[in-house]
């Protein structure tokens, strides 16, 4: 079975908008990640929603992992 992975979710309400980072989901495949994202973050009528595995992101200016809310989270991942 596929390994569970975090997928970061981004969406925009209209074509002219910039993407907002709206959250993340955990899924065993990008297919299920897409489904979970759409069904979890359904609070708006999104023009476009995209997902990407968290480990596809690389921090530019800090030593910690991207999307870290608190330094202590580092120990959890």
């Amino acid at each position, binding site marked *: *079975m596929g390994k569970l992975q975090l997928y970061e979710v981004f969406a925009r309400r209209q074509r002219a908008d910039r993407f907002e980072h709206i959250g993340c989901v*955990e899924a065993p*495949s990008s*297919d*299920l990640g897409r*489904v*979970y994202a759409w*069904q*979890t973050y359904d609070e708006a009528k999104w023009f476009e929603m995209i997902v990407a595995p968290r480990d596809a992101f690389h921090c530019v200016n800090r030593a910690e992992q991207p999307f870290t809310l608190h330094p202590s989270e580092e120990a959890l991942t």
Partner: protein
Amino acid sequence: MTEGRKGYAKPADLPDDVRDHLGSLLIVLADNKRLLGMRYSDWLLGAPALEAGIACSAMAQDEWGHGRILYAMLRDFGYEANQLEHEREASEYRAMELLDAPAGEWPDLLALNLLLDTALSVQFEAMAESRFEPVHYKVSKLLDEERFHFEHGRGWVTRLGGTDAGREALRRSFRPVWEACLRWFGPDGDEAGRALYEAGITDRDAAGLRARWLERVGPVVELARLELAELDGGGSGVWLSRVEPSWDGWDPDVRRAARGGPDAEMLARVRGDKNRPLLMD
């Protein structure tokens, strides 16, 4: 809508036999949507992952919404929507027999998700260009929502089918649902299916709908090696079932092979018995 043919704006415009067949089909679809929504809702808590529970919640809401639209549409066919939604006995429901009892295990729910839900979508898709305008205008949004239901089922079946234990569990759960879904479209030459097709209400008859369903679910169950479908060996690209359904007891009016209906607990929930005093309209 079907090119070059007049549309029907309301049921009264339809030929009598077509109106009867379409009204019956809409009740079948509404009941299946309502009860399938209930079965999804049984898994809001207890799904194998938090995200899967949220997905069940979203799919339940979609199904209830679709059911409600259909019950409301049936008013114009001479039915009383309130009676259909809140007053019927179990034996009057026309949902598939698969929905009479809860999906006890997660693979059972996946069978309903991938096979039964897709069967309903195939029936709706056949009305995307329907000459009956009220249905034609509703189908597009409904199918947009259903796309994610299919992808949920496909994602999970692909995942579980990747292990021996998961595949065995899927095989046990999928076999009865597979047979019931094959049967649900009706036998080749089914009278209602043919009448609706010839009137331009649907774009396929029973045999054509079954073929379209096999085209959708066949590749998924084959990838998971569930031994239910195979590609025609002649290279036609047509998907065939490896299983022939039994037609014993098949009743075309209710599109079921077994008498019955939702169990008592489900009947109370689906009719809203607990909140009956609060019903305002």
